[in-house]
């Protein structure tokens, strides 16, 4: 699958294209198929996302998972500060990254 990601313009937070909007949760990400470039152009022009790009991923039982570790770290947060990730209460969340 292909995922569209970028950063929120105001906050800089990592965001994922859900098919209709942007979410900070990778679980909400949609497969953009071959439409990534077109969505990217429209969304960037509308300032709904900053520095967007398309990445490879796979659908897993837990939801979409980026193929590269860099994007998995972007999706969750720093592996060395679980308290600053999107799942601070889940001590095993980092396993998903590695």
């Amino acid at each position, binding site marked *: 699958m292909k995922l569209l990601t970028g950063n929120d313009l105001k906050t*800089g*937070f990592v965001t994922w294209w859900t098919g209709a909007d942007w979410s900070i949760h990778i679980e909400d990400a949609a497969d953009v198929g071959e439409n990534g470039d077109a969505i990217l152009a429209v969304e*960037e022009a509308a300032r709904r996302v900053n520095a967007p790009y398309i990445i490879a991923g796979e659908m897993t039982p837990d939801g979409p998972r980026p193929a590269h*570790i*860099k994007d998995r770290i*972007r999706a969750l947060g*720093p592996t060395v500060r679980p308290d600053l990730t999107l799942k601070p209460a889940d001590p095993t969340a980092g396993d998903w990254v590695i």
Partner: protein
Amino acid sequence: MYKYDEYDQAMVEARVAEFSDQVRRRLAGEITEDQFKPLRLMNGLYLQLHAYMLRVAVPYGTLDSRQMRMLAHIARTYDRDYGHFTTRQNIQYNWIKLEDAPAILADLASVEMHAIQTSGNCIRNISSDQWAGAAADEITDPRPWAELLRQWSSFHPEFSYLPRKFKIAVIAADEDRAAMRLHDIGIQIVEKDGQHGAAFYVGGGMGRTPMIAPLIKDFVPLDDLLSYTEACLRVYNRYGRRDNIYKARIKILIHELGADEYRRQVEEEFAHVKTLGIDPPRAEFDRIAAQFAPPPLDASAPDAVDRSDPDFAVWLDQNVAAHKVPGHAIINISLKPVGGIPGDASSAQIDLMADLAETYSHDELRVTHAQNIVLPHVRKADLYAIWQKLDEAGLATPNLDLISDIIACPGLDYCSLANARSIPVAQKIATRFADLGRQKELGELKLKISGCINACGHHHAGHIGILGVDRKGTENYQLLLGGSGAEDVSLGTITGPGFDEDGIVDAIERVTDKYLSERTEGERFVDTFRRVGMAPFKEAIYG
């Protein structure tokens, strides 16, 4: 320390106003990211993995308690309650919102700080010896010269768009605590025939093509310091490779030209630059230097220290250095607790260090390129009280220059350029060698980790260096041995095939075990490596 005059303050405030308007225009959609990116980078604002990252300049690593408290305030108010001290003696915040950036820069300007020239192809923050003004072995305080260079290089119209970024270090002691020869220009204030002058080393650096700067001129009269620096920059600006980012640093130019030809061109340029009158009158330098006057230290203060608390005594021996004035000492606060993140400090810790500086260290602190903090002017009689407060705050780890005093870049946990994580490796190594007795048995051992070839973690200069790479989508770690960023400068050599995250920790243990079996009396790790060479270590690592 240097205080802004009206011109300094006006320049910084004008920049805050300018950038505030640029942010407003970006948020309003009046400019695109492509247009905005170079503007935000000129103000130290990057877009990193999780958010915007702001890098704040700490000139030559020196700051006062008011400025340190502002750094804590920014961490608490705009970030996630911590900051990361860097190998360029700066501080970075990892969770900045674009809409907050103007307020942060205004807060910084209110305490004579900014984030200008912490990015971009310009002259970056001038770095220096973290013990400047206090070190027993310096011939003078190098910071007035660093400040002169800071003023000269700030907004320098000719050098705002260099072929590539440019880093300068200034020291004034034979012991190099600033990795001076691994800078684009390394300046050492030296003495010759009773006069002080500057030795210029040009063309050093780390990154993908590490080089040790050759000596270009052994003695430049200090009245010519700016002219000679300008000549060095002009030759680079004229001939530096703008066509290839990987060959654009001055080290490549000097390597290709040869040091002799580069020197000849600099001398020719210097003869011209000297006619332009850019060197300030001595009175202006004296005005700057007066602001670095030594604090009023009482040389008759008690020299004896009560060592009856064994934990205090361990810290005293490891983290406290000799001061040039009797009865005083230099405290090195380790930001490397076992299992912690090298260089990180919470806002409460930053505030505490500011309080200690104000109460005990004549209001001065230093950031070190090894990502620690220094209280430079402390009475020995106050050491125990300070240690108790540091210990309560988790800031009394007695590991300066030991294997757990690791330099590590933010790596793939934060940095968009990184290929591998640095911090978890540092944590695992520090944990493996957590026993202080074991660390002290190993002695001085500088371990440095970078998460990519850009070498922000100075891996080339580590007695043991680690470089994280991406091998087919998996983190892999190369091991280097024999580097040094000190006066015995050298570049590390890769041992062989790399390791995974746990494998690199095991490999380092095999290396240190080999060192213990090979060393002779008084030899540091790097001395043993230089004497016996790579072969025995390689055999220990790979069998």
